[in-house]
C-alpha cells in the first residue's frame, strides 16, 4: 500500500517534468537565451562581478581582460550550440599553474550565476549552461 503511494508520488513528479519538457522547443540553447546579445551581457557582467570580488580578482592580475571577454563569449556561444568556434587555449593550458582551489572554483561559479541572473537568463537555462561547463572543472582544480 505504502509502495503504491510512493509510486504515485514519483508518477506525479515525472508528469510535471514531462509537461515542462514538452513546453520547450527545438531552438538551440543559444537562441533560447537570446543569442549574441545575451552572451555579451553575461561576459560583461561576469567581468564586473570578478572586479568586485577581491579573492577571484587576484587570479586575473596581469590578464588581458579584452581577450578573456572575447574567448569566454566564444566558448559560451559554442557550448550553447551557437554559430561560433572557440579559438582560445584549452582549459588545462589556461588554468594550469593557478592552483585553483575547490572553494575558489565554486565561488567563481557563484559569480557566473550572478552574471547570468543580471543578464536575465532563466534558472532552467542557467542550469543547462552550467551542465555544459561542469565537465571542464577536472581540468582546472589544483593544477
Amino acid at each position, binding site marked *: 500500500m505504502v509502495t503504491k*503511494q510512493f509510486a504515485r508520488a514519483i508518477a506525479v513528479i515525472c508528469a510535471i517534468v514531462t509537461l*515542462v519538457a514538452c513546453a520547450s522547443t527545438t531552438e538551440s540553447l543559444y537562441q533560447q537565451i537570446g543569442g549574441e546579445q545575451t552572451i555579451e551581457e553575461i561576459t560583461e557582467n561576469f567581468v564586473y562581478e570578478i572586479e568586485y570580488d577581491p579573492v577571484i580578482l587576484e587570479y586575473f592580475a596581469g590578464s588581458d581582460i579584452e581577450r578573456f571577454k572575447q574567448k569566454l563569449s566564444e566558448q559560451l556561444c559554442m557550448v550553447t550550440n551557437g554559430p561560433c568556434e572557440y579559438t582560445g587555449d584549452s582549459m588545462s593550458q589556461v588554468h594550469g599553474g593557478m592552483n585553483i582551489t575547490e*572553494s575558489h572554483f565554486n565561488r567563481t561559479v557563484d559569480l557566473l550565476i550572478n552574471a547570468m541572473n543580471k543578464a536575465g537568463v532563466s534558472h532552467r537555462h542557467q542550469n543547462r549552461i552550467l551542465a555544459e561547463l561542469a565537465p571542464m572543472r577536472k581540468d582546472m582544480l589544483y593544477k
Partner: protein
Amino acid sequence: MKLAGFFGGALLLCATSVVAGEGKLIATAGLNQLEGAGGGGIVPWATLSGYDSRDEMSVSAFATRVNLDDYRLHVVGGSLSLYDRVELSVVRHTFDLTTLGGDIAQNVYGAKVRLYGDVIYSDWPQLSAGVQHKVLQDTGIARALGADSDRGTDYYLAATKVHLGAAAGYNLVWNLTARGTNANQLGLLGFGQQQDDGLDIMLEGSLGVLFSRHLAAGVEYRQKPDNLGLGEDNWWDVFVTYIPSKHFNVTLAWAELGSIAGAADQNGLYLSVGGQLW
C-alpha cells in the same frame, strides 16, 4: 552533557582553522536527516552536511519535529563536516507517546566518510559510507516488546548525484542508500529481537527536483525491518524545502510511517529547521 562536549570540541577545532564552509553551491549541501547525517529527511545521503569544500570545515545544527496520530518525535542535533571528507554528528531523539503517555529518549552518534566523487561534478555519483551508533536511554518499552538490546549500530553506503538541468532544465537529485540495521523504529523500540539480533539490509531512496536555487521538492522512501513482529512498515514522505541562505533551511513534509508499536497508520507533518552555523 555529551552534546555540550561535542560542540565544545567542534568549536575548538574551528578556532584552529581559518576558513569556514562557503565552498559549495547553495542548496547542494542538503539537510540533516532524522538520525543526524547529512541527507534528506529520513534517508542519509552521500553528501556531507554543510558547505565546506576540501579546504574548509563547517558546523550545522537542526531541529525536527514529526507529529503523528499517536506519537510525536522531537529531534535536535548538530553535525561537523571536515574538509568535505568526514562528517560527525550527534542527535537526541525524544519520542512522545501522546496517546499512552510518557516518552522514550535515544542518542545517536554518527560518522560518515566520503569515499568518492562530487555530487555535481564527478561523472559517477558521490559515494559515502557511514555508521550510526544508537543508545536508547529509556529501555522499558523496548524490553517489554521483546527487543534484544538497548544499543545498536547501523552501517550504510550511499550514492547521490545531482544532474544539472536534467529535469527539463531543473536540477535533479537522486540518492540510493543501503543500510545494515537491526533497529526497531530507528532504535526507539530497541534493537533486534531475542531470537534474532542480526543485521538486515534495507534499501532507502530519495528523488528531488530543485525548482530554483532556493526551493526543492521530492519524495523519499525507507525500507524497515520488522524484528518485533509488530508489522513495522516501510516509511515514505513527500517534502518541500526552502533554502533562503546557506545558514538557514526549512523543510515541510508529509510523512507516512505506517504501523508503530501496534498503532496503525501513523501519518503526519514533518517540520525541520536547520542551517550552517559556521
